[in-house]
């Protein structure tokens, strides 16, 4: 395209006054020596004048609904934080959780025992949650923390995503198995709490330990504690009674109930949030 044609294309925008300084100067220089383009400019100027004059006469109506308060402001914010964190969570977490759940379904089918899924669920979730935070798990964490979103919001968003994902996996796996075995009627809140409470407890424990000692150590310690609790609960409790520590023995006995596990999980999450802020100060300070 030669210069004349290029300038001709720019003339309407020159007449509208929306060209950059450089382009405006270029057009102005060309206009000095081109009568054809000057005629073109006159046409566009008369068009511009007419459109502007007729539109400027219009009066915008008053707004009928001036909103005083935005109702969904916090929900929007939560949604956008959640969405922004999906891509920052390690892909391996999603893949490995789904894979182990799938293996769990196969094993449960082979042994005709749905409890395999319920036993596996806390381990899968704890392993995932242990890897949601920290510089090793998220190289861009420092950058993320420099945004107006707080460290606690980031941690909560990631915890909600990974924990929610694992709940969804376990729930769908159990529904699938119950459907295959024709036992859907057995599904109840008590059954759900039986696996959700240990899952919440082990996940929050893994999260807290991961902030203290790193992801790998957190997984090892959490698994070890959970296995020990499973293998020798009676032994420990009877030893505590014999050692005249009945309060501690009773406390450990109470740990069996879902409500206690959920309560401890909540405390561990609060502690983790508090510790995240300390960690952020260390990281950025």
């Amino acid at each position, binding site marked *: 395209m030669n210069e004349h044609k290029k300038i001709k*294309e720019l003339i*309407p*925008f020159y*007449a*509208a*006054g*929306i060209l950059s300084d450089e382009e405006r100067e270029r057009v102005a220089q060309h206009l000095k020596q081109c009568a054809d383009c000057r*005629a*073109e400019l*006159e*046409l*566009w100027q*008369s*068009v*511009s*004048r*007419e*459109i*502007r*004059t*007729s*539109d400027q006469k*219009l*009066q*915008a*109506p008053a*707004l*009928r*609904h*001036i*909103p*005083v*308060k*935005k109702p*969904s*402001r916090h929900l*929007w914010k939560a949604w*956008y934080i959640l969405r922004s964190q999906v891509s920052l969570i390690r892909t391996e977490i999603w893949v490995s959780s789904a894979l182990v759940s799938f293996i769990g379904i196969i094993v449960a089918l082979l042994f005709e025992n749905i409890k395999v899924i319920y036993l596996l669920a806390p381990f899968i979730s704890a392993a995932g949650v242990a890897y949601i935070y920290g510089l090793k798990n998220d190289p861009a964490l420092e950058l993320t923390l*420099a945004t*107006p979103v707080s460290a606690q919001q980031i941690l909560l968003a990631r915890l909600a995503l990974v924990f929610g994902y694992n709940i969804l996996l376990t729930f769908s796996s159990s529904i699938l198995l119950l459907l295959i075995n024709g036992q859907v009627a057995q599904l109840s809140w008590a059954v759900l709490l039986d696996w959700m409470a240990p899952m919440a407890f082990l996940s929050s424990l893994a999260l807290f330990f991961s902030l203290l000692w790193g992801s790998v150590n957190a997984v090892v310690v959490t698994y070890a504690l959970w296995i020990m609790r499973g293998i020798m609960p009676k032994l420990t409790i009877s030893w505590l009674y014999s050692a005249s520590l009945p309060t501690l023995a009773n406390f450990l006995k109470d740990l069996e109930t879902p409500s206690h596990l959920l309560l401890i999980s909540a405390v561990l999450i609060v502690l983790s949030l508090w510790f995240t802020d300390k960690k952020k*100060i260390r990281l*950025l*300070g």
Partner: protein
Amino acid sequence: MQAERTMPRNFIFDPSSSTDEELLRHITRGNSLAFNCLYERYGQRLYAYALRLTENPAQAEDILQECMLIVWRKSATYRGEGSAKAWLLSIIRNKCMQLFRQKPTESIEGSDLDFADEAISMEKDLSQQDERSRVREALQRLSPEHREVLELVFYQGLNQKEIAQVCRCPLGTVKSRLSYARQQLRGILTRDGLDNKG
């Protein structure tokens, strides 16, 4: 770093000196002051564009209200890919297109016919009118999509890329519509013997 941590979140906000993008960010946080400022800045232009597309003041007003409601509720969906002005105009355009799909008889095509009828009746009086009214009539004879491109350039002040974004069409289409509009205008004005320089 300490300063960053202690910086208050709601620092003093002056809407009149804020850019459009800043206003949208404040609207996302529920700031009605920013919302009203954006309306003061663009309400008239958006109404003019809606009216140009619908040719119906009542519909144009409804569309403007709907557009502002979308801005209030979904300002977070503005990703800063184009100018805020182009984003607002594209909302108006989408709303108009939705309206035309619901009521095809009142669509742009319908108003095109009105333009043609109007043009024929007015042709008789052309010789008695001044140059400005001749340009106005020439503009009215253009098809709505060509008139729309001129509106976006000369009243809304959009560049070619922004027009393509608002109209959701390729850049080449914008260029060809502009070129066609020019040819049509030149043709109408020359045919009427009113453009002596052409």
